[in-house]
């Protein structure tokens, strides 16, 4: 009896709900379909077209991909990009882990203030930040002129700027805040008594990091990898300003193909390969992060 009575409003409610969902979701979805999926589709489409000095030359199949994959410069640039991004990521994690743990466990009074300083560093204009590093590292820059002024060196160290090292230093500083925050958030969820117990039982700093802090921070580390490694890999601004020719990364190569050479077909093919790489990388990290979270959940519950 009741069921029959209840059915009518439920049906009405369901159709109401459908109307509400449509009202909320339509505009964001349409914007993304047109201006996000659209450009990505055009990118994919153009990677199969031939472009020359005369303009568009029609469909060429996988020729652009063939050109990219047999181009030795591409592989060199890719290797440079991989080494810079990976080294910078490792450097960042080496500093982000202790920083996050100090912020999460050791600072009591100024925790929020220090976090805000971290966020602020990330919110300041990246161009200004990269440029500031350039003043510091340049051949006539502050570090060199200070060393010369103090009489420690006779000639400026030329390799400070426009090198791989410069790109690693500047990108590490640039992304440090974004790498630290998710690790901090993961550690904040940890019971600090666990670390104290390890400390009381006489675990050294290294053991404490390896056995306790890193496993507990793992979910945050995977988030940091997702947030930082892909932007780092496709970084264009920093190598353009401080990288010179030896710090030339894949982002610069794509920009050169698209904006300078006008080789849109090859540029699109490279971009599309990079897109596939990004999606695969994020997928893997997401999976690993979930496994990591499950493991922490089980180890903390047992």
């Amino acid at each position, binding site marked *: 009896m009741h069921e029959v009575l209840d059915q009518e409003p439920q049906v009405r409610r369901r159709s109401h709900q459908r109307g509400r969902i449509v009202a909320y*979701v339509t505009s964001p979805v349409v914007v993304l379909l047109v201006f996000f999926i659209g450009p990505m589709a055009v990118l994919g489409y153009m990677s199969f077209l031939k472009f020359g000095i005369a303009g568009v030359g029609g469909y060429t199949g996988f020729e652009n991909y063939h050109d990219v994959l047999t181009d030795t410069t591409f592989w060199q640039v890719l290797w440079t990009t991989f080494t810079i991004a990976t080294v910078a990521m490792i450097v960042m994690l080496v*500093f982000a882990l202790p920083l996050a743990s100090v912020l999460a466990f050791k600072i009591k009074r100024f925790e929020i203030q220090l976090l805000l300083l971290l966020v602020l560093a990330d919110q300041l204009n990246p161009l200004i930040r990269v440029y500031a590093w350039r003043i510091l590292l340049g051949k006539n820059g502050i570090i060199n002129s200070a060393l010369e002024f103090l009489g420690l060196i006779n000639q400026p160290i030329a390799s400070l700027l426009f090198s791989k090292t410069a790109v690693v230093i500047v990108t590490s500083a640039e992304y440090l805040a974004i790498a630290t925050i998710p690790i901090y958030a993961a550690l904040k969820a940890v019971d600090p008594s666990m670390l104290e117990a390890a400390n009381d039982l006489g675990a050294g700093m290294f053991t404490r990091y390896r056995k306790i802090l890193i496993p507990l921070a793992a979910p945050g580390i995977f988030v940091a990898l*997702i947030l930082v490694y892909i932007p780092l890999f496709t970084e264009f601004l920093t190598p353009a300003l401080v990288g010179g020719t030896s710090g030339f990364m894949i982002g610069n190569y794509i920009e050169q193909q698209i904006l300078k050479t006008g080789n849109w077909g090859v540029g699109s093919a490279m971009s599309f390969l990079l897109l596939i790489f990004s999606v695969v990388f994020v997928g893997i990290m997401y999976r690993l992060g979930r496994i990591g979270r499950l493991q922490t959940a089980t180890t903390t519950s047992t």
Partner: protein
Amino acid sequence: MTAEAVDVERIADRRVLVSARRREIAGTIVRGAFLVFIGAVLYGPLLILVIFSFNDSIIIALPLEGFTTKWYQQVFSDPLVVEALKNSIIIALVVTPVCIVLGTLAAVGISRFRYILRAPVAGLVGAPLVVPWLLIGVGGLLFFSRLHVPLSLNTIGVMQVVSIFPLVTAIVAARLVRFDTSLEEAARDLGATQWEVLRYIVLPLIAPALAASAIFAFSWSFNNFTISYFTAGFQSTFPIWVFSTLNHAKNVPIVNAISTLVAAVQVVILYAAWRLSRHWQARTGDNALTPEMVI
């Protein structure tokens, strides 16, 4: 127990205490030095930039040559700088509200209902967060040229919206999932329309997240370089102007001055936002804004 034994024990105890304290002090010093180092890495270069913006020399090198404000005067007499700044501010002022609206709609649509297409919709909204800005920029350039849309401030703005509103969705959705839907259901059962539910229940709940999103969306838009660089026509924005200036001349003191000004304004805005959030907290007892400010 003899008196000597008690004494020995007490001394041993004190020794342990003293060594523990010593270790603690050493730890504090190491931590302090570490934090100072991180601070120097994050803010040191900027501080030097500020100092050199007042230095009376066209060459940016030590030793300092004397105090001047002439670079600041030059900033405002350079029409290109003023134009670039104006463009950046206009874009940010348009992009921010659009992103807030789209981002909030998507957040409510994803986190408040259960339906078959929910996962694909969430995936679509999350996708621009995964795709690098470089590719969004390049894709936008090719897309607009394919459709014969001339590049302008509009094309910059559109592509910025695509990359920024999903971030607003993430912030707002994180806030929404902390409240269950019972309030909204109660309001609906009492006969509230969807608009009334949104206006009187949902919006007050997510107000702190919206405030945080507004600040972040503005600075993400203002700071954006990569997407803007590829989708810009002849008009430049502030980051594009800095980039092209640095690529033509090596170190221009005028860049120091304008960078200092922009950084100062950004610091003031974020500080004001933080104070406002503290004020809000004290008034409503809602301590939810701080985490949103941080993430």
